[in-house]
């Protein structure tokens, strides 16, 4: 299927979903669905670097928080509309990705992973000490009184925006997967040295992937202040974003765009249910156990099972 056709279908599916959901009466549904979509974007973003390229990023929360805090600061300073805030946060997080990548991507892969952890703690310390953005006490963001486009509640509007952003993220991820860039990234994942020898410009491709992945994580964060309306650093840099962004692609399957989406919808929904019915500590434990279980026992994820099953069926017996 060509990129254009896929994009049109994805947009149509997104639009139908968004419209159909407006008939749901319960506003809590939109809270839960917003969170699941947030995870879908984060894990799709993580997978561009983690799944396609084979570089593990533990700093999802850092890039996410860049998006969150760029929105807070720009909204406080200039009262920019949501559309511009989304673009600004994406660009800033993407540039941060290039910066971090430039410093550490020339080293072996696990140094990059450790550096992403370092980035999260450094940014956390910086934000905690930054009074304009609320500092350690946190910042309130007042949701605009008039909801655009005649939505009855602001959360319904945010949810619809989030559906659009998720569709966008998925289209970008699939485009990368099928492009020369994606082939280069896959070559790096399989054998970086061989790729370099074969003339693949590994550093440049890795930088592009880091920028796209980081920018997309920032994108996921830009609408978050309006969703939560009170942001403090501990919440914005919560390790659960980093863990989920890794666990969801690992569980879904890391080689295609469908894997992270599948993982996010499954694991995100389970977490929403467990959080309501049991407790949030237990739901984090479930994520951790599933992550370790899948990465040791089923590294191909759910998509791996599906592909193996399809291969068995199509084989003439």
């Amino acid at each position, binding site marked *: 299927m060509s990129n254009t056709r896929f994009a049109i279908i994805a947009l149509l599916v997104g639009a139908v979903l968004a419209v159909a959901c407006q008939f749901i009466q319960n506003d809590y549904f939109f809270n839960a669905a917003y969170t699941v979509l947030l995870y879908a974007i984060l894990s799709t973003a993580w997978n561009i670097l983690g799944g396609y390229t*084979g570089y593990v990023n533990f700093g999802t929360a850092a890039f996410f928080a860049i998006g969150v805090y760029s929105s807070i600061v720009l909204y406080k300073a200039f009262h920019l509309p949501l559309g511009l805030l989304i673009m600004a946060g994406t660009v800033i997080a993407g540039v941060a990705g290039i910066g971090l990548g430039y410093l550490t991507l020339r080293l072996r892969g696990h140094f990059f992973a*450790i550096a992403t952890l370092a980035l999260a703690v*450094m940014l956390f310390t910086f934000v905690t000490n930054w009074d304009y953005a609320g500092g350690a006490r946190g910042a309130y963001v007042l949701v605009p009184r008039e909801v655009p486009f005649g939505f009855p509640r602001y959360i319904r509007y945010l949810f619809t925006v989030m559906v659009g952003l998720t569709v966008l993220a998925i289209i970008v991820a699939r485009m990368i997967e099928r492009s020369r860039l994606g082939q280069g990234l896959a070559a790096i994942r399989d054998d970086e040295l061989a790729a370099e020898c074969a003339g693949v410009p590994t550093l440049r491709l890795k930088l592009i992937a880091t920028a796209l992945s980081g920018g997309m994580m920032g994108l996921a964060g830009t609408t978050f202040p309006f969703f939560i309306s009170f942001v403090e650093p501990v919440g914005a840099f919560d390790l659960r974003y980093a863990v989920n962004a890794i666990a969801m692609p690992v569980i879904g399957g890391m080689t295609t765009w469908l894997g992270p989406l599948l993982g996010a919808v499954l694991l995100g929904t389970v977490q929403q249910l467990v959080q309501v019915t049991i407790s949030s500590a237990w739901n984090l434990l479930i994520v951790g156990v599933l992550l370790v279980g899948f990465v040791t026992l089923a590294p191909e994820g759910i998509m791996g099972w599906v592909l193996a099953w399809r291969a068995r069926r199509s084989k003439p017996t």
Partner: protein
Amino acid sequence: MEITFPLVANAVIAGLLLGGFYAAVSVGVAISFGMLDVVNIAHPAFIILGAYIAFTLNAWLGIDPIVCAVAVSPLFFLLGAGLYRIYHAAFESRGRGALPGLAFFFGILFITEVVLILIFGVDYRMVKTSYSELSLHAGSIDFAFRLIVPFVVSVIMVVALHLYLKHTFFGRAVLAVAQDPLALRLMGVNPVRVREVAFALSIATAGIAGAFLIVIQPVQPSIGREYIGLVFAVCVLGGLGSVYGTLVGALILGLAETFTATFFGPSWSPAVSFGLLLLALAFKPTGLFGR
């Protein structure tokens, strides 16, 4: 702020004492990451686990936490051996490289943290020892015993590890497995077995370092993450895989942190270790003593 001699001298002393403790925290990673190439980012989680075990035994039996930790270190050794077996079976033996292993250890870190939260809650826990409140005074300079005792035991542990690795057959086998596992196999030594014991040793040091931690400061399940940057910064600064280099790196980091806390405020000190790590990775990834 006015810079006075007692202020600087106290910062130097506190920094060096803290650095000794950081050496105990990092020496396990110098072995697992530096020598075995196992990127165990869950190392700090085992330190926190050690801290909580020392806390529980201390509250239950009233024994000094450091004595408790040394007594339970064989359990940590077994835990490490078991963990390495899983890691080896799932990743190394299938040639899956270090990167999926990173996700594995990240999950272990997370599970340990959440389990500790479920058992102990998110309150800060601390222990009281006979020397917690005592300190030596030399003029206007203070030496707090809650820092001196962990410092002394840490340095003993690090020096002992160094001597063990340099001068025993097994220790040399560990150094050899880092350089050339095939040659080791030709000598009739099983490299997997050597790596297993070395990794187990590294986890045992984490258990002991946990007791130092809870003597020095109150502990809460999620503070382990702050030590991830620290341990890797120390190891990279010290040159990977060198035990004495780790000690030097740890002292540098201890000094850098106390100076930052003294002159800029404690809220900035978490950024120091990670900042130094990023700088080291960007400009001198082979460490201060690396070739």
